[in-house]
């Protein structure tokens, strides 16, 4: 059932139904629906202000939705207290916001100890393992200001992923980074995607969005306007989508569609 390579029968881990969100009369999300199968990755693209980040914040319940529902593993999440929900639907934001008073290891162990109630040795071990997975072995004792932006963002990803949430939301995790640091973080995300973590990735990097995802979702003015396998979405005949992709893929030529279908 949960075999990520299966088709059709795969378990839906995240089911978003008719989600709407408005603040003070301004509607930010309109009738957003999609499903994420366990072990799969959805990438969300679209112009700035189209509601991508708000979508993730609503799923992590940093914002309240106005209507619609979110099902996690088939169960309505309304009844879940926010902390319980958040530890199962993790979020990494573009401003990594590592805890400045804690070293890399303690940044990762805090959540493990407080939400998973692991003992200190168990939490330390798990945190070390995750820091190793994101390529930061040996830097456990570094404090955030002693790490590069890319390293900080990788700690932030390890911090959220170490809790082994059902779904991990990544909000433009490379957009605050210097260009030369983008790739190291993208590789970590690709690694997570390939190891079967269920991901929702919001990104401005269209080639990466195509490469990492099984399904690509395009948003515009709070609505989902395209959804499907990346190569299909990129080949959309919808004029506005075409213009958006043309702007973001300038210089990438035809290589992108082949990248999308290789994944």
């Amino acid at each position, binding site marked *: 059932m949960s075999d990520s390579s299966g088709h059709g029968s795969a378990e839906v881990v995240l089911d978003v139904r008719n989600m709407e969100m408005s603040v003070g009369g301004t509607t930010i999300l309109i009738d957003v629906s999609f499903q994420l199968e366990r072990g799969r990755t959805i990438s969300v693209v679209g112009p700035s202000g189209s509601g991508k980040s708000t979508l993730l914040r609503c799923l*992590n319940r*940093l914002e309240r939705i106005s209507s619609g529902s979110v099902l996690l593993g088939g169960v309505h999440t309304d009844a879940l207290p*926010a*902390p*319980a*929900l*958040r*530890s*199962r639907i*993790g*979020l990494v*934001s573009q*401003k*990594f*916001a*590592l*805890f*400045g*008073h804690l070293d890399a290891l303690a940044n990762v162990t*805090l*959540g493990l100890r*407080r*939400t998973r109630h692991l003992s200190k040795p168990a939490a330390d071990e798990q945190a070390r393992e995750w820091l190793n997975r994101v390529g930061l072995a040996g830097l456990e004792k570094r*404090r*955030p*200001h002693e790490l590069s932006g890319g390293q900080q963002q990788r700690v*932030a990803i390890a*911090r*959220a992923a170490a*809790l082994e949430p059902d779904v991990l939301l990544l909000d433009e995790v490379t957009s605050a980074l210097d260009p030369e640091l983008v790739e190291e973080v993208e590789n970590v995300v690709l690694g997570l995607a390939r190891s079967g973590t269920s991901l929702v990735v919001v990104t401005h990097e269209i080639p990466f969005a195509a490469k990492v995802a099984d399904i690509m979702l395009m948003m515009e003015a709070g609505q989902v306007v395209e959804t499907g396998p990346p190569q299909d979405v990129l080949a959309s005949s919808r004029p506005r989508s075409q213009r958006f992709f043309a702007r973001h893929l300038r210089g990438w030529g035809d290589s992108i569609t082949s990248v999308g279908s290789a994944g």
Partner: protein
Amino acid sequence: MVDNLPFLLNGFAMTLGYAAGALVFAMLLGGLLGTVDYAVHLWPVRWAIRGFVGLFRNTPFIVQLYIWFFGLPYAGVQLSAPVAGILGLGLYGASYVTEIVRASLASVGREQEEAGLSLGLGHRDVIARVVWPQAFAGMVPGLTNEAVALIKNTSMLGFITITELTLRTQQAISSTFASLPLYLTAGAMYLIVNVLLTLLARRLEKTLARGGRGSALNLGSRTEVPVHV
């Protein structure tokens, strides 16, 4: 003059005792109210705290002290001088500490708070384990100022019959008429304790900065907060 020294030192000990008691009271109450003001988003709570701070910061300490000691008996409540002294100094100090704590917590930033929340930490955990530790280094200069001010304000407790250093000094002067030497001696005692306190606080600040605590804050500019001694 030298004959009067034990008499003054006795007052000095009294001053230190009242200062310590009121300081602990002010820090605990101010720490609690500042934290609640930052963390609890309920308007009645917020208004109550703002009201407390506004009332106690914007009226003279001596008027507050007179109300506790000379005013309350009018309403049928007689506080002893030590109770009125500690309560008066403590509440007055707490109103300042509340603001220092609230502002320092706010300076850590909502991003840090959201980072904690989004991991699934409870609100209390986020305040206690994410926000407070990073805010603390930033509080030290302001709290030091407040402690120094509080120690100086103990000099007004003599008005409600507490035999602290300033009252002792005046009593000594009334029998010896050696006003200048005695006032200078008393001043030196206040000076010594406040300078020591300030130096200690500077060291604490440096230790905290070295430990990387409060790295989210710009400690460089905060250490420039003038401390009047």
